[in-house]
């Protein structure tokens, strides 16, 4: 037997994931779990699952978990962090959950500078409910509620959550990443780890937006989905760091 260089993270339970084949939700789960283990905070972490495809994520993250109402994960996380200030608290939310019904919640968790971390999965659609339009759905993109393609004249251009939240003074770290190949996975993991570190250091609210896929509702194979993400989402949602209060302090 050789030395194991990669195996399933101890930060995940044994329960098989329910996500569709090739859905990048699974990849992001792994990265979070690995960071929690590497930072040695799994036993003091409390996660908050959203309503969306990740609704069952409480089955997978190997730590205490809350299942929140749709969009309300930041409020739930606030309640937890205020009651247990020594714990590490994160929310995991989709674009329907965070950028639509939960817009007020995410803005205000940033506004109050809550010391929590949000992982935001932007897949430009409502996965769970069968592929309806999200506020992040691209112009022209067909969904079950934009059957003729999203028409900006009718319902506007998608807005960019990271750019918007970066304007909020008490947000400490806001970045957008993706996980569709190894270099991006490596960078995404570093971002997630940094987000948790900023929480631990009490710097304020941190959020990592992850561009993700929904092969099922995009009607593409997982591999095609990745191409679509690269060609369509990435140009509209540029990867990068939108806010980093540690940078100005001479951090990385």
């Amino acid at each position, binding site marked *: *037997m*050789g*030395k*194991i*260089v*990669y*195996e*399933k*993270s101890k930060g*995940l339970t044994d329960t*098989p*994931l329910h*996500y*569709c*084949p*090739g*859905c*990048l*939700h*699974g*990849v992001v*789960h*792994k990265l979070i779990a690995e960071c929690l283990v590497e930072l040695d905070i799994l036993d003091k972490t409390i996660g908050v699952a959203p309503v969306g495809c990740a609704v069952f994520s409480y089955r997978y993250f190997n730590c205490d978990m809350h299942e929140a109402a749709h969009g309300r994960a930041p409020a739930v996380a606030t309640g937890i962090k205020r009651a247990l200030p020594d714990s590490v608290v994160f929310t995991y939310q989709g674009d329907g959950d965070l950028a639509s019904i939960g817009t007020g919640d995410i803005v205000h968790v940033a506004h109050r500078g809550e010391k929590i971390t949000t992982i935001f999965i932007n897949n430009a659609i409502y996965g769970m409910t069968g592929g309806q339009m999200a506020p992040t759905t691209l112009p022209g993109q067909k969904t079950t509620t934009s059957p003729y393609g999203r028409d900006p004249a009718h319902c506007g251009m998608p807005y960019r959550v990271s750019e918007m939240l970066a304007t909020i003074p008490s947000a400490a770290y806001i970045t957008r990443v993706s*996980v569709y*190949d*190894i270099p991006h*996975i490596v960078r995404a993991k570093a971002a997630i780890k940094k987000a948790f570190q900023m929480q631990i250091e009490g710097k304020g609210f941190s959020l990592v937006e992850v561009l993700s896929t929904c*092969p099922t509702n995009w009607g593409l*194979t*997982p*591999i095609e989905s*990745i191409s679509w993400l690269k060609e369509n989402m990435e140009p509209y949602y540029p990867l990068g760091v939108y806010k980093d209060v540690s940078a100005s302090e001479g951090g990385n």
Partner: protein
Amino acid sequence: MPKGKVTFATESCKGCELCTTVCPVKIVIMDFTRMNTKGYNIATVKDMDKCNACGSCAKICPDSVITVERID
């Protein structure tokens, strides 16, 4: 070059093919002749000798199907 060995927890594989896109030596492929009990075709490695234990296939697998060992 380090040498590696990968193993698949085939019952968890969903046949998404993502692992096949990242192998630097292109040895991860789909086995379209086999299906697990969930009805998915499964991923496999065709020429294990070439594996360099880079872990890429495992890192991208959303379902943590793959374990990578270094055997040098």
